[in-house]
C-alpha cells in the first residue's frame, strides 16, 4: 500500500526504551511512576499520598485542584500526558468516601498514571471538569454524572447520557441504588406509558433549528413553558 500514504510505524515513542509485558507484578510497592514525585513537588498542598498497587501508581489529590494538576500534567514537556484514558468513579461497600478516578497516559514517555480524588458523599459531589484540557472528557464526564451524580464544574453540557433525561430514580452505580431499580415495576410501567410520545426532540434541539417555527402552536406554547422533553 506504499502508494496510498499508509506508512508502517514501529512505535508511538521510538526514543523511549522498548516496553515489555509485565510479569510477576508485585501487589504492593514496586517502581513508582516518576510523575508522582514531580506532581508532589510541584503541588505540595494538593497531593495527599501516593501508592503503587499491582504496578500502577495512584496519586491521591485534593478534588478542587484536579484540573490544575491535570492541566500541568498535560502541558509540561517533562510529563506530556496527552491522552485521557478514562474518567470514572468508585464507591466502596459499607460507606466511606466516593472516589473520582482519572486514568492518564503519556504516550511519549510510555507512562500510565491514576489520579484519585475523594468526595464526601454527605455533601454535594463536585469536582472540576477536565473538558478544557481534553475534549475526550465530554462523554466520559457525562456518563460519570449520569451513573454517580457527580457534578463536573465547567463541563459545557452536563446532562444524562445513557439514561434518558427525565430519569427520576437516581444514580444507578451508587451503592445505595438497588440492582432492580428504585421504583417498582408498576411505577416504572406507569411512567413509561405516561411519557409524551411527541417529545422526540429536546428544547435545545428545537431551538437551534427553524423547525421550531413549524411546530403546532399549542406544542410551542407547552415547550415554551418549560415542559421537559427529549430522551
Amino acid at each position, binding site marked *: 500500500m506504499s502508494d496510498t500514504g499508509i506508512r508502517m510505524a514501529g512505535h*508511538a515513542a521510538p526514543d523511549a526504551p522498548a516496553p515489555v509485558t509485565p510479569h510477576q507484578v508485585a501487589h504492593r510497592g514496586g517502581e513508582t511512576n516518576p510523575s508522582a514525585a514531580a506532581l508532589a513537588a510541584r503541588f505540595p498542598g494538593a497531593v495527599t499520598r501516593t501508592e503503587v498497587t499491582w504496578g500502577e501508581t495512584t496519586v491521591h489529590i485534593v478534588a478542587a485542584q484536579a484540573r490544575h494538576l491535570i492541566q500541568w500534567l498535560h502541558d509540561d514537556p517533562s510529563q506530556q500526558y496527552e491522552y485521557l484514558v478514562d474518567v470514572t468513579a468508585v464507591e466502596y461497600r459499607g460507606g466511606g468516601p466516593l472516589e473520582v478516578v482519572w486514568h492518564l497516559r503519556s504516550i511519549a514517555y510510555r507512562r500510565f498514571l491514576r489520579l484519585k480524588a475523594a468526595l464526601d458523599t454527605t455533601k454535594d459531589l463536585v469536582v472540576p471538569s477536565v473538558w478544557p484540557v481534553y475534549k475526550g472528557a465530554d462523554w466520559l464526564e457525562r456518563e460519570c454524572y449520569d451513573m454517580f451524580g457527580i457534578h463536573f464544574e465547567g463541563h459545557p453540557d452536563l446532562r444524562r447520557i445513557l439514561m434518558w433525561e427525565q430519569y427520576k430514580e437516581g444514580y444507578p452505580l451508587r451503592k445505595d441504588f438497588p440492582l432492580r431499580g428504585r421504583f417498582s415495576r408498576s411505577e416504572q410501567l406507569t411512567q413509561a406509558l405516561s411519557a409524551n410520545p411527541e417529545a422526540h426532540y429536546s428544547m435545545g434541539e428545537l431551538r437551534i433549528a427553524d423547525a421550531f417555527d413549524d411546530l403546532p402552536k399549542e406544542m410551542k406554547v407547552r415547550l415554551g413553558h418549560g415542559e421537559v422533553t427529549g*430522551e
Partner: protein
Amino acid sequence: MATRTVEVALATTGLDGAGNPVRTPLVTDAGGKVVPVTPHDAAEPDFGGEHMLINIGPQHPATHGVLRLVLELDGETVVRCVPHVGYLHCGFEKIGEYRQYNQIIPWTDREDYLNSIGNNVAFVLSAERLFGVEITPRCTVLRVIAMELSRIISHLVWVGTTSIDMGAFTPFLWSFQERENVYRLLEAWTGARLTTSGTRVGGMIADIPAGWLDDLKNFVRTFPRTIDEVDAMLTKHAIWVGRTIGLGAMSADEALNYGLSGPMLRASGVAYDVRKDFPYLDYETYDFEVPVGSAGDVYDRYLVRVEELRQSVRILEQAIARLPDGPVNIDDPRLILPPKSKATSQMESMIHHFKLVMEGPRPPIGEAYVAVESPKGEKGYYMVSDGTSKPVRWRIRPPSFVNLSAIPRMVEGHLLSDVIAINASIDIVMGEIDR
C-alpha cells in the same frame, strides 16, 4: 488538510493488450497530471439560513445499531449534530458488582459482540492482575490467537457493512464468508459462535480440539487472498475513493485530545497501539507493523484497517509456529475447578468444587487497569476489589464510546450523505457504547 493524489481506477474501461485493467484517472490537471480528488467544497447555494432539523435513527440500518443522530442542516450541509445514545443500556457494570469474577465473563461477550473472545481475554487479563497470577505459556499463545481471530472478525464486519453503506455489495459477501470460517473455528474451540465466554480466570474454557490447528493454518493460508480481493476492489475504486477521501478528517493533535484510539487514532498519524506501547501477552516478541495514516479521514481509516488484517495474519502465523505444549490452565486450586471426574468421585474434590462455585475465588484488596488493543481501540477493564469474591467496581473503558463522542466535530460542514460514511468509519458497536 493537505491535498494528496490518489490514483483511481474505473472498472468499466476494460483491459489493455496484456490483459491488465486500464487505469483511468478521474481528473487530470492542465499538465496531464493526476490531481487529488478534492473533498466536497461547499458549493451549496445559501438559502438564507433556512435550517432544517433531521433525525436519523435509532432504528436506521446505516447507524449500525440503535444510535440516534439529530442533525441541523443548512441545505444539505450539516451545521450541528447531537448524538443520542443509551438505548441498549443494560447496566453491565452494575450487574458485575453482584457477580463473581468468572460469572462476569458472559457479560463481556455481550458488550462488543463482534469481538467477544477478545473481550473475554481482556477481562481475564485484568482479573488475573488483580489475583496476582501468571498464566501458562501455552495459554498466552492461545489467547494471542483468540485476540487476533477476533480482530479479523471485527474488521471483516466493518469492511462489509461499511461498503454496503456506500453502495458496494460484493465485499460484504466476501468478508462475511471469511467471517463464517473464523466463527467455525471459534465454535469448534469454545462451543459458541458469538457468545464465546472462551476464557476463565487462570486459563481458557478448554484446550483447542484435535486437528484445530490444521484448520487454523488452512484459514491463515487462504485468508490473505480475500484481503487482496477487497483491496483490489475498493482501494482504487473511483466511487469508494470519492465517497471516503477527505471526510471527517481529524489532525493528530485533535484526535489525541478527543481521546480517539485504535484505527481512528492511527489513521490520523499517531502510532499508538497498546500492543506495542503497553504490551500484554508478550506481544513485544511478535514481529508485526503498526500501519499509520496521514490525513485521518475515512479513506485512511479504511486503509489502516485493511493493513491491520494483514498484520493479524502475520501474528497468527507466528503464534501457530511457537505454540508450546503443556497445560492451558494454571495449577492453582484457588482458581481452577477440579476435573469433573474427580468432583463426582472424591469427597475432597467435591468440596473444593462446591466452595469455588458457591463462594468464588477472592482476590486481595487492590485495583488494576489492564488495557488491550481491541479492534475498536484501547479497551480497558478497571477493577477494584475489597477482598470479597465480587468486585466493588467493574469499569469498562469503551473505545467506541469515546470515538463516537467526536462525531459532532467530524460531521460538521459535511454533506448529509457523508454523515453515513463518517459514522460507519468509527466502527461503533452500540452494545459496547451503551453497556
